[in-house]
């Protein structure tokens, strides 16, 4: 004879895997959607970055100075310089995106004025006006180049020292390795994504499995069997955690497959520098996170009158988890004080950060997994009490 906990787990699995629609929406769709959305975003960013690169831009220049002309003419092969006086019609055309253009207006007698300009007099420096349309990629491209050329020219006029002058392409001043830089990016993005995906998986199934059973009247049928309430509570939490984990894995695969497309848009070569133990820690942490998410959502679902009410109660909690996921974006490093790893959800996020930045230590991992298991035990106890409480189970 099997334990009642495994009977409940099997029943929850049977309910879930017997429903093709639920499988699609909970397991297949999250991964598929993430892959499609992120891939489209990656392609879009890439397209945006390359769009306008090869388009010819007309640059109207008013009062072109002799000193500047050679610099400008050599700066971009896809530009046509036309000496022109300031013309409002051209500006209007630029505003309406009818033309790919930039309008540069130098002050009259620019060369003499800058040569005679003395900052100590307090007078305003000669001003170069560059009119462009930032929503036109070609116009924006030439504006950026023009600004850079003019800024470099201005710097050269009073050059006293350089900062980080690159004498060769091999010269590096930022001594962070590529692994560190990739780890830094991943540690800011992935923990939040993982937590959100796992939570979405729990949200998709837990309210129906507990509040839904109350609403449908099927929980009472279970409660009149000789099964102990703690077996029911444990069976529910473990089965929900396993299903949510599958949903999380689906999302993770979606992220993993679409990540190269996302990052390649920024010309970063993907070469994940992690070893087997890092993945083991990640898996441990993901399961510990799912356990505690399923626990909390189960408690709220058991307290709720019906599925709708459960959704309302769980939403604020989901926001807290999302906010916790944002923490890595605003911190320099994961904390060393082990007490922080006793805080549910936050602890999982910080351990994931440690994994991604190659600072994995076993004590934070053990404290996180251990505390999450203890919290799950407390939740099983609480859920058992709720299953025993007629006020909670039969409140209607």
């Amino acid at each position, binding site marked *: *004879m*099997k334990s*009642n906990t495994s*009977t409940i787990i099997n*029943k929850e699995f*049977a*309910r879930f895997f*017997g*429903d093709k629609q639920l499988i699609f929406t909970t397991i297949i769709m999250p991964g598929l959607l993430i892959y499609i959305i992120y891939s489209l975003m990656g392609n879009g960013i890439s397209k945006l970055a390359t769009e306008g690169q090869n388009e010819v831009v007309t640059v109207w220049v008013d009062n072109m100075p002799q000193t500047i002309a050679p610099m400008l003419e050599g700066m971009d092969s896809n530009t046509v310089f036309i000496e022109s006086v300031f013309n409002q019609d051209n500006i209007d055309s630029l505003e309406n995106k009818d033309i790919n253009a930039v309008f540069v207006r130098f002050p009259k007698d620019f060369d003499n004025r800058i040569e005679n300009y003395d900052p100590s007099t307090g007078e305003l420096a000669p001003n170069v006006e560059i009119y462009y349309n930032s929503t036109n990629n070609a116009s924006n491209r030439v504006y950026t180049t023009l600004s850079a050329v003019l800024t470099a020219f201005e710097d050269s006029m009073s050059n006293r020292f350089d900062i980080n002058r690159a004498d060769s392409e091999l010269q590096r001043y930022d001594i962070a390795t590529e692994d560190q830089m990739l780890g830094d990016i991943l540690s800011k993005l992935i923990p939040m994504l993982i937590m959100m995906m796992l939570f979405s998986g729990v949200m998709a199934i837990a309210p129906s499995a507990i509040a839904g*059973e109350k609403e*449908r*009247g*099927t929980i*009472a*049928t*279970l*409660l*009149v*069997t*000789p*099964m*102990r309430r703690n077996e029911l509570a444990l069976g529910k939490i473990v089965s929900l955690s396993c299903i949510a984990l599958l949903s999380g894995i689906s999302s993770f695969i979606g992220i993993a497959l679409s990540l190269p497309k996302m990052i390649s848009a920024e010309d970063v070569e993907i070469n994940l520098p992690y070893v087997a133990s890092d993945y083991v820690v990640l898996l441990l942490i993901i399961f510990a996170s799912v356990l505690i998410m399923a626990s909390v959502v189960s408690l709220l679902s058991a307290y709720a009158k019906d599925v709708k009410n459960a959704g309302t109660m769980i939403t604020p909690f989901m926001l807290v988890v999302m906010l916790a996921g944002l923490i890595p974006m605003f911190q320099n490093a994961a904390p060393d004080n082990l007490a922080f790893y006793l805080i549910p959800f936050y602890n999982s996020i910080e351990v994931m950060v440690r994994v991604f930045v190659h600072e994995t230590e076993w004590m934070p991992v053990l404290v996180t997994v251990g505390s999450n298991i203890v919290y799950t035990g407390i939740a099983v106890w609480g859920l058992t009490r709720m299953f025993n409480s*007629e006020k909670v189970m*039969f409140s209607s």
Partner: protein
Amino acid sequence: MEEILHVEGLSKTFTLSKKQQKIEGTDQKKKVAVDNLSFFVGKGEIFGLLGPNGAGKTTTLRMLSTLIKPDSGDAVLDGCSINDDPEGVRKRIGFLTSELKLEDAFTPNYLFDFFSKLHQVPDSDIAERKKKMFERFGIDKFAEVKVKSLSTGMKQKLSIVISLVHNPEVIIFDEPTNGLDVLTARTVTDYLKQLRDEGKTIILSTHIFSLVERLCDRVGIIIDGHMTVCGSLEEVCDGMKIEDRFFELYKELKGGEE
């Protein structure tokens, strides 16, 4: 007569929400559902709790099935106290009420196996008992049809079968024929008689006088949470029809109030 259930001083009071107070037409925050109820049930008999709606019948049966806890008093079923050994009680009873529902997503076959396992029925006995019960209630042809596709009558029959998967010694039925079509109602009453003939004890609640007359060996009339009279059908009726006896007691207690 050997007692299988002894109920002593069972009481239950509910706290009413404002909405419930409005529905009940009262400004009282508390409602006494069952008040110091005492009775016994003999082994192998059909005992009926007869009373109007809101008399406390369902609350009593829910306490006996350990779904809710009494505020005071106790009931001992086959040596197990509802307060001290609720799991022991649940092992010995089959409880059926219209409030208990079955999950739509499963088939009768799956549900029978599932509840058999929860009742710790040995694997070797499940198939044989399932065949017997499904044939008895005509579910065998629908064994692989999901509950959501079954007719209302078939769902009700399945609920009865599921509540009896473990062949319990004591069967507690709350309004056993309520909402059933005539054919299913007849199947149920015939089956209850068969169970009694097999030596099972049946405790049922009802407000249908004819059902009590046809089925019950002993009866307790419950009005406003009080057991007004309890005994064999002959003792309770006192030479009258059960319906007339009930209204006589009702008028005595309520002072002619209908």
